[in-house]
């Protein structure tokens, strides 16, 4: 089975002029990503910001020095994982945006275990245990969506969005209540986790090994999807449910486990936010990362390895959003308009080879 760049197509249509086809598909995807940047440039011009300068400074700050590069990778890390939480179910034909809530609950579990149980452990056992705790939290939240989907026959998109709101309030409850730092002067956040539980940091940057973990998980997901029987079955299910049914696959069970796996991956993103950056749980930990991951997955056409690239681009845009706010007084939310435009062009450009 060759590496198949088009997730929405049933199977590679033979080998005829595969190279030319692939080139065309790449060009097309590049164009779809370029137009929104041009449109957003016009928008910026209307507000008196030179788009070329902004895009230029975006590139310079990213590739100019090690620190800037590290900052972008740092931003990109959760997007990779929440992106996988959207891309993996998408391969099975599901539209899952539960990453947002799953990340939050994963962060909650990681912080809970980190604060109360894992503090005294050495790093080599404490960090993996905390990672598992995060994955467990995310998986539990994914379990809710999976049960509602398989047992309750409820559409996963609607339930996952609704549960995202619930997750945010759940984290709110914990940081205002059982997990509140007694020395916080009434600020809503958890106590700090032990220094042994913090992820190791690369010299000269703020970047931690979380990015390596995210990249490794992306590689694993890619391998499973592209190279194993299980992955093949998931892709068949995603491209033609009826065919999968006729072939005797147990569809409910596959949906169930795919949604739980996605939840676990997003939960790990939550753990990385706690152990890598914040050191403690806040009510706002990871806000919007799930939605941005969904965007990253769409930009990557749900391909796990290309997701690394699109998450990186989103990381650049996020950093640029901060630059924009500092440099020109436009709010950082301006870049979400750009992200929305990108999404629309991807969605509109997706119909093809019909």
């Amino acid at each position, binding site marked *: 089975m060759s590496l198949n760049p088009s997730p929405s197509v049933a199977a590679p249509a033979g080998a005829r002029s595969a190279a030319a086809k692939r080139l065309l598909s790449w060009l097309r995807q590049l164009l779809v990503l370029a137009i929104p940047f041009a449109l957003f440039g016009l928008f910026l011009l209307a507000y008196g910001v030179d788009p070329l300068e902004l895009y230029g400074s975006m590139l310079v700050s990213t590739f100019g020095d090690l620190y800037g590069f590290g900052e972008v990778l740092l931003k990109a890390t959760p997007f990779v994982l929440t992106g996988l939480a959207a891309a993996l179910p998408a391969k099975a*034909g*599901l*539209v899952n*945006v539960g990453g947002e809530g799953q990340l939050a609950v994963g962060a909650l579990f990681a912080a809970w275990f980190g604060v109360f149980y894992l503090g005294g452990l050495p790093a080599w056992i404490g960090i993996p245990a905390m990672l598992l705790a995060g994955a467990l939290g995310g998986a539990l939240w994914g379990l809710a969506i999976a049960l*509602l989907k398989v047992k*309750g*026959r*409820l*559409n996963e*998109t*609607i*339930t996952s*969005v*609704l*549960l995202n*709101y*619930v997750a945010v*309030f*759940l984290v*709110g*409850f914990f940081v*205002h*209540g059982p997990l509140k730092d007694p020395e916080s002067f009434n600020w809503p956040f958890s106590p700090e986790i032990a220094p042994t539980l913090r992820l190791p940091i690369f010299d000269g940057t703020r970047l931690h090994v979380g990015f390596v973990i995210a990249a490794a998980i992306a590689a694993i997901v890619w391998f499973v999807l592209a190279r194993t029987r299980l992955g093949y079955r998931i892709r068949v299910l995603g*491209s*033609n*449910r*009826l065919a999968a049914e006729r072939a005797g696959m147990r569809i409910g069970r596959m949906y169930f486990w795919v949604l739980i796996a996605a939840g676990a991956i997003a939960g790990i993103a939550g753990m990385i936010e706690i152990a890598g950056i914040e050191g403690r749980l806040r009510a706002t930990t990871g806000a919007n990362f799930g*939605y941005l991951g*969904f*965007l990253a997955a*769409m930009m990557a056409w749900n391909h796990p390895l290309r997701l690394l690239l699109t998450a990186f681009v989103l990381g650049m845009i996020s950093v640029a959003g901060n630059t924009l706010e500092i440099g020109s007084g*436009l*709010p950082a*939310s*301006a*870049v*979400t*308009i750009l*992200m*929305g*435009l990108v*999404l*629309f062009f991807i*969605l*509109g*450009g*997706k*119909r093809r080879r*019909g």
Partner: protein
Amino acid sequence: MIADILTGAVRSGTSVMLASQGELISERAGVINLGTEGSMLAGALGGFAVTVWTGNPWLGALAGGGCGLLLSLLHAVLVVGFGANQLATGLAIMFFGIGLTSFFGRDFVSSQIVGFNPVPIPLLSDIPFVGGILFNHDPLTYLSVLLVPAIWYLLFRTRLGIMVRTAGEREDVLFASGLNPRLIRACAVLAGGFLAGLGGAQLSIAYTHSWVENMTAGRGVVAVALVIFASWKPQRAMLGAYLFGAAQALQLTVQQQGWAISPFFLFMFPYLLTLAALLLVERRKLSRTPEALGRVLAGDPGG
């Protein structure tokens, strides 16, 4: 206390009710629009802004509907025109709406308006208990209540309604009758966007009298869920919306009573209630799902 909750149910349920009536039209035509959330936000901001500028809440409400309609136009173009995935497109419009309104809304955060205020209906509002609950509301709320039978009549008793419903069930039939099902679907989506925008405007102009970033907080998504809960019946969607409103109103009541329930559980409650409601009706409703919509919800290709 019960009167408080019921009054609050209508007050805070109306925005969701308007949005769900709009979404109902759209879903009857076979298009699910999670962008309802974005349309509501756009309506809330657009309506608020125009009310600030003109001082006239009626113009504001109209502008709110217009803003909601504009966002739903994106959905119509992408879904009906380009055949994009309905659920993913709806989500994209939701994000876009959040970003757009938080960008353009920052100048309005501290603005103040008079907006709509409760207008008690003479005599009727004096009836003990019931009067306060039913007959002491803002004009948009009265309007929204009248809208429900109007939409029911439109959908089930007129030619236009048959066209809309056929677009959601058997578009080949429309085709055979020389009608363009895609056009009808697009119009249904736009109507839904307008009502969602109006609902958003009700929230900002009549209910809270303010603009706050992301103030709809999932009400649009709830509206979509309620339509499914309601088995695509306007009167049941109204009921569902007031139920959601009651769950919201519970927060205030519990605070006033001083009961020791964490506010966060009360915040969660409306969403959990929505999920529970969905789960409850799920088993009975399969045959009633508009056919085209059933394909989208089940995730079948070609939706």
